[in-house]
C-alpha cells in the first residue's frame, strides 16, 4: 500500500493534527469478522508483480473476485509496474488456498486508482457490491471489514468503521478508520453481510488508523466498462493513461473555474485564491524566527492534494498556490532583492528525466491590463512536457511585484499534469489578480 497523500502529513504538524480523531476500534473484535472472512476467503487473491527475467516477485497487492468468469478488482498502483513495462514484468495471483495462476490486465482507472484484471480460473463465488455504498448513503459509523494480504504475512481481516467521505477532497475517497497495511491495496472492504463498499487504497503516514477506500461505485463503473470495452493491450496502456489523465485534469480545471476565485489580502497587495473547497490553505510567518529576520515573510499556501499515482516515481495532478508578502525591516534595496531571490523559486521542482522533458522558462517584466493597471511584475513561466502523455505538462507561473524596493509580493502557481491551454487560462487569471489594494 502506498501513501499517495504524504504531502499533507508534512503540512499537518502541530495543532491541526492534535485535533484529529482519536483511534477508534478499541472495542473487542466481534465474532462477525470470522463469519465475514470465512465467506470471503475463496474470493480473495494476492496479486503479485513478477520480474519476468528473474521469476521473483517485485511488488505485492491484493484483489477480489467479482464475477464467476474470473474478473477481479484491484488498485491501479498494484498493477502499474506491469501496465507501464509489460516487457519486464508479468502479473500472477495466489489464492488463500495456495493455488496460483496468470493474471491479464483488462482495464484501468488511474484517477480512482482501480484496475480490472482477469484471473485464469473460472467458477467459484464472487463478491457483490453493497447497494447503499453504490448510492452513497452508507451511514457514518457503519462497521466495515477490510481484507487483503498485509506485508505478505497471510490473508487477514481488519475491523474498522466507516467515517464518511473525506471532506474537501476533489478525488472522492471514503474515510475508513481501520488498520490498512502495505499489501492490502486492492483488497475489498465489506459490510457485515459481506457486500463490497470500497477498495483499500491508502493510509496516512504519521496518523493512527486513518485509511482510505475508493468508493465502490467507481469500481462497479469500471467493471461495467471493462465488460463492454476491448481489453487493454500492453501497447495501448500508456496512451490510455495519458487519455485518462487528460480528461481528469480537464474536469479538475473546469471545477476550479466553476468554484470561482476570491482575493487574498497580503499586506497592501491582493492576489488570487480559489474558492474551491478542496484547496487546503496554510499560513506561515517568519516573525518568530531567531535570530530576528531582517525582512518579514508572511506566506499562505493552498494545495489541492489531488495528486494521482501514475508510477512509483511519478505522481501528478497537484495544484498549488503560494503567496508571500515580503517586507524589509532593515535591508536596503540590494539586500532585499537578494533576500527575495532566496525566497522565491520559479523553477519546477522534482524533475524526473524518465517522465518529463527538461523545463524551459519564459520570463519578462509584465504589466497587467485592465481598468486599473496592476503593479509592474516580474513574471516567470516554467514548463516541461510529459514524454509519454500528449498535451500534459508541468507548469509554474511566478510573479514578483516590482513597484517597491523594500516590499514585494511573491506569488507562485504550480500545476502538475495540466494541458497547456488550461494552464495558460488559469495562469492568466492568476497574473491579472495580482494587484495593489485600492
Amino acid at each position, binding site marked *: 500500500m502506498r501513501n499517495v497523500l504524504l504531502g499533507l502529513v508534512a503540512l499537518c504538524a502541530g495543532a491541526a493534527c492534535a485535533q484529529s480523531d482519536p483511534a477508534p476500534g478499541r472495542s473487542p473484535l466481534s465474532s462477525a469478522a470470522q463469519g465475514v472472512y470465512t465467506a470471503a476467503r475463496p474470493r480473495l487473491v494476492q496479486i503479485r508483480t513478477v520480474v519476468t527475467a528473474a521469476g521473483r516477485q517485485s511488488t505485492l497487492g491484493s484483489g477480489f473476485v467479482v464475477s464467476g468468469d474470473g474478473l477481479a478488482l484491484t488498485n491501479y498502483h498494484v498493477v502499474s509496474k506491469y501496465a507501464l513495462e509489460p516487457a519486464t514484468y508479468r502479473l500472477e495471483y495466489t489464492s488463500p488456498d495456495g493455488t496460483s495462476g496468470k493474471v491479464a490486465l483488462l482495464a484501468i482507472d488511474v484517477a480512482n486508482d482501480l484496475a480490472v484484471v482477469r484471473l485464469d480460473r473460472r467458477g467459484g463465488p464472487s463478491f457483490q457490491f453493497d447497494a447503499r455504498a453504490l448510492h452513497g448513503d452508507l451511514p457514518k459509523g457503519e462497521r466495515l471489514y477490510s481484507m487483503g494480504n498485509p506485508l505478505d504475512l497471510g490473508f487477514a481481516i481488519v475491523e474498522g468503521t466507516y467515517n464518511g467521505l473525506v471532506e474537501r477532497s476533489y478525488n472522492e475517497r471514503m474515510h475508513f478508520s481501520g488498520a490498512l497495511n502495505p499489501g492490502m491495496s486492492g483488497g475489498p472492504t465489506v459490510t457485515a453481510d459481506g457486500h463490497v463498499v470500497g477498495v483499500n487504497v491508502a493510509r496516512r503516514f504519521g496518523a493512527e488508523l486513518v485509511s482510505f477506500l475508493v468508493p465502490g461505485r467507481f469500481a462497479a463503473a469500471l467493471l461495467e466498462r471493462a465488460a463492454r470495452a476491448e481489453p487493454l493491450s500492453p501497447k495501448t496502456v500508456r496512451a490510455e493513461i495519458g487519455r485518462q489523465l487528460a480528461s481528469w485534469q480537464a474536469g479538475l480545471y473546469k471545477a476550479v473555474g466553476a468554484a470561482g476565485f476570491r482575493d487574498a489580502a497580503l499586506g497592501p497587495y491582493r492576489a488570487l485564491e480559489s474558492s474551491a473547497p478542496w484547496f487546503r490553505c496554510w499560513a506561515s510567518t517568519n516573525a518568530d524566527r531567531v535570530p530576528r529576520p531582517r525582512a518579514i515573510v508572511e506566506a499562505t499556501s493552498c494545495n489541492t492534494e489531488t495528486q494521482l499515482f501514475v508510477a512509483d516515481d511519478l505522481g501528478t495532478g497537484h495544484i498549488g498556490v503560494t503567496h508571500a508578502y515580503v517586507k524589509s525591516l532593515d535591508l536596503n534595496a*540590494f539586500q532585499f532583492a537578494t533576500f527575495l*531571490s*532566496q525566497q522565491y523559486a520559479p523553477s519546477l521542482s522534482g524533475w524526473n528525466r524518465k517522465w518529463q522533458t527538461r523545463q524551459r522558462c519564459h520570463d519578462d517584466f509584465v504589466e497587467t491590463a485592465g481598468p486599473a493597471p496592476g503593479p509592474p511584475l516580474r513574471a516567470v513561466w516554467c514548463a516541461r512536457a510529459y514524454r509519454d502523455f500528449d498535451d500534459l505538462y508541468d507548469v509554474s507561473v511566478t510573479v514578483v511585484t516590482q513597484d517597491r*524596493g523594500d516590499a514585494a509580493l511573491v506569488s507562485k502557481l504550480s500545476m502538475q499534469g495540466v494541458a497547456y491551454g488550461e494552464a495558460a487560462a488559469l495562469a492568466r487569471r492568476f497574473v491579472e489578480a495580482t494587484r495593489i489594494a485600492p
Partner: protein
Amino acid sequence: MIWVEILSRHHHDVQARHRCPGPVVRIGRGYDNDVVIDDPYVAPRHLVVRRSENGELVAEDLGSANGTLVEPGAERRERVALDGTRVLRIGRTRLRIRDALQAVAPERVLRPAQRTWPATLALIAAVVLLQLLADWLGETTEPRLSRYAKPLLVLPLIVVAWTSAWAVLSRIFAGQAQLGRHLLIAMCGLLAIEAYDAVPEYAAFALSWGPLAGARVAGLWLIIGAVCVFHLRAISPARLRLKAGLVAALAGIPIALQALAQSDLGAGYSGERYVQLLKPPAFRFSALQDESAFFAGTARLKDRLDRARTEDSPADSDDD
C-alpha cells in the same frame, strides 16, 4: 680589433665577450684557437674570421661536420659576411662577431625608477572595498564579521600565489622577477574581476535576457586571459601577438567546455539560475510587456517542449 660574443639561446643576450686583437680570429673547441668554445658539437677547428678585401668581416667554416648556420632560419653557409647584427650558430652555440667600429645606441637618460607601490596600494584598497561592498549588498541575515573576513583572507593568498608564479617565470625567462610590476598587473586584474562580476547578472535582469547571465563565466575567463597577456608582456614584449593568440586559445578551452556542458544539459539549464535572480526594481531597463505578449511568449514555448518530447530522449541527456 674583433669582438666575439657568445649569446644566450633564447634572447641572444651576451653571455661572454672575447676581445681578439689580431686580424684573424680562429674559433673552435681546440686550445689552439683564439676563442675556445666548450660545446661538444663544435669542431676543434670550426670557424675562422678574417677581413675581406673591402674591409668587412667574413666568417669561413673550416670543414666542420655540423657546419656554420646563419640565424634566423639556420641556413648552412661556408662563408658568411658579417655585419655586426648577424647571429651565427656553430654546434649549439650562438655567436655574434663585431669589430670596434660597431655603432651603439645613444646613452639613455637616467630617470628615477617608477614607484609602483602607491598604485598597487590604491588598487588593493579598491579591491577590498568592492569585495566588502559586494558582501554587504548580498547580506540578508545577521551581520557576521567572519563572512567579511573570509574573502579578505582568501584573496591575498590567491594574489600572492599568482604573483609569485609570474615572478618566478619572469626570473627564469627575463632574468628579473619584477615582483612589483606583476603584483600591479594582478591587482588590476582582480579589480577588473571584482568590478565585472556582478555586471552580467544586473544586465540580464535589467534587459530580462537570460543569456547575458550565462555569459558571465566567459567574461571572467577573458579577463583572466587579458591579465595573462599583460604578465607575458612584462616578461618580454617580443612576439606579443603570438602569445596573446595562445592565451586566447587557452581561455577558449574553459569557455568551450562550459558551453559544451550547458548544451549537454540541454538549453534552458543555465536559465534555471537566471530566473531565480532578482535585483532592485530600479534596475529594470526593458519596457513592461503587455500581459498578452507575455502569454504569447509562453505559448511559443509549447512547440519547443513538444519537440523535446522526442528529441532529448531520457537516454542521451545527463542527469543532474
